[in-house]
């Protein structure tokens, strides 16, 4: 009799625990659009060198230099007066582009942005970035499972990464 009661008690307890964990998960926002935040790769964005950022973002991978990737930085290209807002433009004839990554080598945190593209999305992509000092700027594209990279050197008059 006593054992039977105990068993029931256990069942009830177990049920209560799993119900409360479920409720916790639900309220913590894991199932809500807030999961946007959870997907931000903080390791990669907080990395202080280009190598670390790429390692965190892509893992170990060979990157081929590719001049077919058109990449413009600054206006006029290769020179920017104000580093706080430097225009960039990425264009390429590659197909099946899955990812585009922009890095500025001498910024305190080199990784600027990482785009995840679906087949419905297409280059050219334009944006504005901050550049701290004269530095190479790198664009990396992942297409058909391969990585392509191109670099431009940009001079800035006023650093813009404070």
């Amino acid at each position: 009799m006593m054992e039977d009661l105990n068993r029931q008690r256990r069942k009830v307890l177990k049920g209560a625990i799993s119900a409360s964990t479920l409720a916790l998960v639900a309220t913590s926002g894991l199932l809500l659009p807030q999961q946007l935040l959870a997907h931000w790769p903080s390791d990669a964005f907080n990395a202080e060198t280009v190598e670390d950022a790429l390692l965190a973002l892509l893992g170990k991978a060979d990157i081929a230099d590719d001049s077919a990737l058109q990449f413009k930085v600054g206006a006029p290209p290769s020179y920017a007066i104000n580093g706080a807002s430097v225009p960039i433009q990425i264009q390429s004839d590659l197909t099946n582009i899955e990812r585009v990554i922009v890095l500025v080598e001498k910024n305190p945190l080199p990784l600027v942005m990482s785009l995840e593209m679906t087949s419905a999305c297409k280059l050219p992509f334009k944006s504005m970035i901050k550049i701290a000092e004269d530095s190479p700027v790198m664009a990396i594209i992942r297409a058909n499972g391969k990585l392509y990279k191109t670099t431009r050197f940009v001079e800035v008059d006023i650093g813009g990464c404070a």
Partner: protein
Amino acid sequence: MGLSEKDRIRAKLKAGDTTVRVLLSHPMHTGRAKNDADKLIPAEFIQDIRCWRNSEEVLSIKCGTATARNPYFSFHLVGGQQGDQIAIRWVDNLGAKGTVETTVI
């Protein structure tokens, strides 16, 4: 800051493809700058931007602190037609969110 200004978006059909241009209104503090009182301004920057076309997610942009203030993006979507709904949603590191929508013209 930024509250009085609005996010802007334009989407236009051009040669069969949709061109989307977005200008978000956000200070994008890196956390390294100092204000007039020589105190560090805490980091506040957009981390995640996503774009939907007619409830289909087409692009996601992850940003670091080095994206310029009042971020501007321009990209192309394959195909599309007039009247398509384009929506952008963003989240910053403090959890602030914004949505901006338009129809393709």
